[in-house]
């Protein structure tokens, strides 16, 4: 790594910078020309109508799109001074630094303990004492410890939906990433479980950079420091069909987005008038 890059890494206020990012699925352009800077140890929320490409952008940050055949990213995603899509970057390392929590809780069909120990074991941690310690700390970190400490051998699938999602968060923080991406982590949860996760996010943000996709305006207002509003652009084609792609409309501090948005489109969407 060059000296200049190293300097950027330590001094930069931004954890992740997206420069003119386009994402394609095969021939289809899914999101066009997204540029935004994500701040360190802050919560950034992505909002916008369904299909506008929030998940797509989120997944381009930790190269999860690589797993989809035909998906392609152009532009730069700069993380700690390095373009994650440069040819010398290993996606495995990217995902180890930038963790992800999915919309639908997806614990492995293994015990709670093995779920949390999965990541550390991948990295080669073998000692039982070390693993025990990591499991306990991660489960405490996701506020799940008190509920499961007596049956860590129980299957992760035997937990309730909210508990499963917290297990997935524990699993993610077990390998100490710098950044956690969350794609609608509360969309399948009731208000109480949602509240628990939100509290957890406020706690986690003291250590981690968090990016969250949400459809819940109140949630964005409650937890996010910064909010990015995405929307859809269309172009009519012959035969009544059309071509659609997502764009970033507005990105600012959360109160500004919700109280004095710059664009009418943003105002209409948060006012509930949007498709």
């Amino acid at each position, binding site marked *: 790594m060059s000296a200049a890059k190293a300097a950027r890494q330590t001094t930069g206020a931004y954890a992740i910078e997206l420069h003119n990012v386009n994402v394609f699925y095969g021939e289809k352009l899914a999101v066009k020309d997204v540029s935004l800077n994500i701040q360190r140890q802050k919560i950034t929320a992505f909002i916008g109508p369904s299909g506008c490409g929030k998940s797509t952008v989120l997944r381009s940050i930790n190269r999860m799109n690589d797993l989809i055949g035909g998906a392609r990213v152009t532009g730069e995603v700069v993380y700690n001074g390095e373009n994650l899509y440069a040819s010398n970057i290993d996606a495995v390392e990217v995902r180890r630094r930038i963790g992800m929590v*999915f919309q639908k809780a997806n614990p492995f069909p293994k015990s709670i303990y093995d779920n949390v120990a999965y990541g550390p074991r991948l990295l080669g941690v073998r000692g039982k004492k070390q693993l025990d310690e990591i499991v306990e700390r991660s489960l405490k970190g996701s506020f799940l410890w008190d509920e499961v400490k007596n049956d860590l051998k129980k299957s992760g699938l035997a937990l309730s939906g909210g508990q499963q999602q917290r297990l997935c968060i524990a699993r993610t923080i077990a390998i100490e990433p710098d950044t956690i991406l969350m794609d609608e982590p509360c969309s399948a949860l009731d208000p109480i479980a949602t509240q628990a996760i939100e509290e957890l996010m406020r706690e986690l943000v003291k250590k981690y950079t968090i990016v969250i996709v949400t459809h819940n305006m109140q949630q964005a207002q409650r937890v996010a420091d910064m909010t990015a509003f995405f929307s859809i652009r269309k172009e009519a084609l012959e035969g009544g069909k059309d071509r659609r792609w997502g764009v970033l409309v507005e990105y600012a501090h959360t109160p500004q987005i919700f109280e004095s948005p710059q664009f009418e489109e943003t105002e209409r969407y948060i006012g509930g008038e949007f498709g």
Partner: protein
Amino acid sequence: MAVNTISSETQEYLRDEDAFKRNLRSRHFRGRLWRRFFQLALVAAFLALIALFFNILNSALGYVVEDYAINPITLAANGDLGALPEEELVMILVENRANRLPVYVRDYLYAGDPAVFTTLPLSALLSNTVLPAGTADLTIRELSVEQQAELLLNNIGQPQLIAIVEEQVIEPTILQTWSLTASLFERDQIEAEFQENYAAQGATLFFKSWINLDFLTSPMSSNPAAAGARTAILGTLYVVIVTIFIAFPIGVGAAIYLEEYTSGSQNSRTARINRLIETNIRNLAGVPSIIYGLLGLAIFVRALSPVTGGRTIISAALTMALLILPVIIINAQEAIRAVPSSLREASYGLGATRWQTIYKVVLPSALPGILTGTILGMSRAIGETAPLIIIGASTFILFDPTGLQSKFTVLPILIYNWTSRPQDEYRVAAAAGIIVLLILLLILNATAIILRQRARRSLTA
């Protein structure tokens, strides 16, 4: 939007209560009809199964009339040969069948070409055998009866000596058999027939279950009364187990490669080749098994004979492995495909490499499905006869298989061989063989199913 475009006719139809009621009746009626059909299908399948079992059991159990050349009671107390030491068993052979001792040496100690058996010296014929002093350079014909007896005594164990005595000295012959139904419902008639035809010559009438310990543990025999399935059972076990050991890793490996490494590839050429391979594998699953036999004959028996030793267990297992490979690959592919992609994403999201994801997440979740395919393949390997006939499994063999390169026979071939013989008694023995085959199938499948249950439990509990 949609509501506005519905025509008034359609709307009227949707609101017509009478039409709805009439229609509902016929909808329910059609449902009941299908249900009845499914029930009948089940009953038909069940009846077919019952008929099969009845047919087999009907021949495998029943009254028989048996006669001996020499009654075993005259040889041992209560006719129990097992109580006699080896020396006495050999003595019985010497007393009764002195001129056939060389034949027993050939059948039980010699594995080579029968044509040269009488012409070569013993040291060239019999390796790993303890020869009586000073006989190494003699041919078998030049040995005295005592020396031949010593040769047998030194090298053949008690169970095999008993088998020889039973078959050659006691010579039980079955004079008549009755089916199970006849034995149960026409006993008086059987009794009368026995008194009239056989009682005078000293034969005995008794109820015989053809599946008994002797049947399981004695080798084949040219005498149906003494014939056993031992060699074939061992041969089947050998072939099936070696087959699975070959086909399982190759099949699962191929499935993993197709599903996890090349499917969903951006590269359209890889995708095309992938599709081509998959289609071919699917077609291979439907190729008649006899064609695999021809392939096995050409490759494993002929071309690779220096390695496989020709018509041996390893050739058979390789052929069977080819035969069941498509079944295992297809089922493993389905199982791997059924693993939710959310689990793969979770694993990759935690920084797992592709192989770590496959090994730690995909395979454990797919294992029950993979084992289902293996069970199907195994069942097929146990039952297949045609390819083994082609590659030349032995139809008559007295040796237990000893290794990958030994000659062998398997149960289906034994059964086929027995059913095609003229004597009635062999057909009864064949029925017993079928039952043994079914039981073996059941045991092997049960083992695999237990493994599968265990794999499944570890995923849920």
